[in-house]
């Protein structure tokens, strides 16, 4: 009996399913896995270790046991930071989802064409999103002058609005695709039972899309917990410690004083625990389809709503989405003098392209770095993640364990790796070079693209793969010769995703670089501040060159909008899950 059991285990393989004599599969999976392990698991462990030390100015570590954890209770800022974190992580996602539900419902009634303009907000970099809102809400120079004069800059609710603005399209898309996947026959049954309009929506549609609503909520929570870019921009307007959440507070500690590195690590441990909990909920949601029961509301009218109401909802959503973008365009065309007139002009008197000239001439090295790094990272990401995704989908490589690990990483923002990564990059002597960004950017992109490619290859016909094996190809060659040429669709979506994330990234370049790309000595690849950093720097009160900020913001939107137009038909594949 024992021998028989043992024999079966050996043949089935402990981890990768089949007992066939084949090593070629490791060629597919190991590059990505080796990368992910050394750039995620190692930093998490190393960070936990660092949290037991404190540092001298010279950088020597001193063991302090749990004293960093004890300091959490004494930290004068921690109450404020925790309060803000809760607002961003709970209140903002709630509002997002509450707004997203009617928008998704209206979209289904009037057609999905409006998805494309509504999605812009999620495509453009978070830094750009933040500056356009701060420009618009400036009580003297922005539209806010005409609506409600208030010192928006020092309010955490400005950050909440920006976060809602950025995450709303994703929530709408997730819920919209859920509504669309409700089987036709269920709807017809509802009509036959005499339910239409609001009553049907509450009784049938809402319970059926409750998994998507929860998913949208958890996704927004994860993004809210690690909210960074708007706070970074807002803090330059409002002053320190006003808008901070945990994520930003971590970064400030990390950035300002090496002696605080142990405490930073401690804060990161706390965040890692929080994000792991959220990721666990997210994985649950992805893998199970629980349907919430919603009590029947008898007073809801069972009557089709007039289409006009749906159009009004969409119109409001479009205004909310496009207004800050329009204002950004307007400001970017104003001359320095006109910029400072109060009240602000709505239509520029004498539109000028001077701001763009300024941005092109001073921002060129940043643009080169951003484009270069985003392209390189997209290439590396697609290579690593399509190989791993294929090995996982076609050959069950790593089984459920690896799948859950990848999903976990997609829901775990990269801030938590920052301290050990900084140490690693310094050890490699790569601080402030392109290399620093090239080796760290895939952490942001490989997990999500692996998940996209996995889902793409799950639908890859098994018999084509088996025919290729019978034709004499090992599994690596099956990928290279057959799967790869046939996966243009999946790779397109993954590439767009990867490029957008890389293009808009702010945290890693802020942490690992301090000067622009040295164009006089291009092959050194030293100096690697990205365009997001440039935009953020322009926004600081020291420069306060709002015309240039707006022009830079507009330029930063160009590649994302081109990509949006490119994949407008595949939007649902990106976020629709």
């Amino acid at each position, binding site marked *: 009996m024992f021998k028989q059991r043992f024999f079966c285990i050996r*043949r*089935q393989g402990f981890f990768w399913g089949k007992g*066939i*004599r084949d090593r070629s599969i490791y060629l597919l999976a190991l590059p990505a896995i080796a990368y992910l392990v050394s750039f995620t698991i190692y930093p998490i462990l190393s960070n936990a270790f660092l949290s037991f030390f404190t540092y001298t100015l010279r950088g020597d570590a001193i063991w302090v046991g749990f004293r960093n954890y004890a300091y959490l209770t004494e930290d004068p800022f921690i109450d404020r930071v925790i309060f803000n974190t809760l607002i961003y992580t709970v209140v903002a996602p709630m509002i997002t989802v509450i707004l997203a539900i009617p928008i998704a419902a209206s979209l289904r009634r009037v057609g999905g064409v409006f998805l494309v303009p509504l999605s812009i907000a999620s495509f453009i970099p978070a830094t750009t999103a933040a500056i356009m809102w701060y420009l618009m809400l400036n009580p003297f120079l922005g539209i806010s002058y005409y609506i409600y004069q208030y010192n928006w800059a020092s309010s955490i609710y400005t950050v909440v609005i920006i976060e809602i603005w950025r995450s709303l399209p994703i929530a709408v898309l997730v819920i919209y695709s859920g509504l669309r996947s409700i089987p036709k026959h269920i709807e017809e049954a509802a009509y036959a039972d005499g339910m239409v309009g609001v009553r049907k929506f509450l009784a049938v549609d809402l319970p059926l899309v409750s998994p998507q609503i929860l998913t949208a909520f958890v996704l927004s929570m994860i993004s809210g917990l690690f909210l960074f870019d708007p706070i970074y921009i807002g803090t330059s307007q409002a002053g320190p410690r006003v808008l901070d959440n945990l994520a930003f507070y971590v970064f400030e500690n990390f950035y300002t004083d090496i002696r605080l590195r142990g405490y930073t690590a401690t804060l990161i441990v706390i965040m890692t625990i929080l994000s792991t909990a959220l990721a666990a909920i997210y994985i649950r949601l992805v893998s199970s389809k629980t349907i919430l029961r919603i009590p029947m509301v008898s007073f809801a009218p069972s009557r089709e709503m007039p289409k006009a109401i749906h159009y009004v909802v969409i119109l409001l959503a479009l205004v909310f989405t496009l207004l800050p973008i329009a204002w950004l365009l307007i400001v970017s065309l104003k001359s320095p003098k006109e910029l400072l007139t109060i009240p602000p002009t709505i239509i520029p008197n004498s539109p000028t392209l001077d701001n763009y000239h300024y941005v092109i001439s001073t921002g060129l090295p940043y643009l080169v770095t951003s484009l270069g790094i985003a392209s390189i990272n997209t290439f590396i990401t697609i290579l690593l993640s399509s190989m791993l995704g294929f090995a996982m989908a076609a050959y069950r490589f790593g089984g459920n364990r690896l799948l859950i690990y990848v999903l976990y990483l997609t829901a775990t923002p990269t801030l938590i790796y920052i301290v050990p990564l900084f140490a690693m990059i310094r050890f490699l002597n790569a601080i402030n070079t392109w290399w620093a960004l090239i080796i760290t950017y895939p952490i942001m992109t490989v997990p999500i693209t692996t998940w996209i490619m996995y889902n793409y290859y799950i639908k890859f*016909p098994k*018999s084509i793969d088996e*025919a290729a*094996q*019978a034709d004499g190809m*090992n599994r690596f060659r099956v990928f290279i010769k057959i799967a790869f040429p046939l996966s243009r669709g999946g790779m397109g979506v993954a590439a767009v995703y990867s490029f957008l994330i890389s293009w808009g990234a702010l945290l890693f370049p802020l942490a690992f670089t301090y000067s622009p790309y040295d164009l006089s000595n291009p092959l050194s690849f030293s100096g690697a501040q990205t365009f997001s950093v440039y935009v953020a720097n322009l926004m600081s009160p020291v420069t306060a060159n709002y015309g240039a900020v707006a022009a830079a913001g507009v330029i930063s939107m160009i590649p994302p909008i081109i990509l949006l137009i490119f994949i407008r038909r595949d939007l649902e594949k990106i976020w629709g899950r």
Partner: protein
Amino acid sequence: MLELKGIVKRYGAFELVIDSIVFEDNKYYIVLGPSGSGKTTMLRLIAGLEVPDMGDIIMDGKNITFEPPWRRNIGIVFQNYALYPHMTAFENIAVPLRIKKVPGGLIRDKVIEIARLLEIEDQLYKYPHQMSGGQQQRVAIARALVKEPRILLLDEPLSNLDARLRIEVRGFLKKLQRRIRTTIIHVTHDQEEALAIADEIILLNKGRIVQKGSPEDIYRRPRDIFTFTFIGLSNLVPAEILGYEDRGLVGFRPEDVYIDDGENHDLEGIVETIEYLGSHSIITVRIHDNITIKIRADLGRRISIGERVKLRIDRDRILRFGKD
């Protein structure tokens, strides 16, 4: 020669067990069984697409149990053909040779030779989506054969074709096998197909081999009730009805029953239904409160529903089964 020895393969509650089976060279084997009988699993084990939990697969004296498909000398034709959609027919057929690094000129000759054999020379520069199902299938067969495999595996190759084409292709397959002289292992659930082309049928049920033999063996000398009822039309009645003394069952084929108005009949009953099949009819006769039998009637005598008929059965052809 291919041999499976002591094979066990489990999937949850399902278990395929093969004590021993030998496939000799240059024969046309058909693995036949109802769905879920394990026939596709058997094919996949031979192909190397699955590894058995126990047992060995031996080809020409070499143990290939753990060899992956690409190191076994086999060709497979899948039910849905599995052509590479991004390659023309020519490129599809050339793949196995390219992988083997056969020189370009030789590849051309071989592809054209096999295409001629399969009568698809004029299709070579089309993409799969531009071809009909039958043409795609021939390309798939060409691709499987071009590297001259020791064994050609066919997984339900006829099930995606319409009834007329199915009969044409099955004749073609048999002819092809005689010309290229290779071993073919063909999996199907269609017993008529099996009887029509096999040199030897391997009948599977519930993960076990029930019988192996020539089509005539299987049809005329079934070893148990499953085999008897699975293949062709059959009648199964309690032995007592035909005057046997034991409590078992007896079986006979519809064509072994004659309508005989003479004195010397075995059974009589009332005609219930008549299925007109052109060359003959199949008639259902109720011979007892809860027993009906099917008989094959030529069109010489007019029969009508409700008529009382007397039947005689060819005693030599009667099969006796123990009660189980």
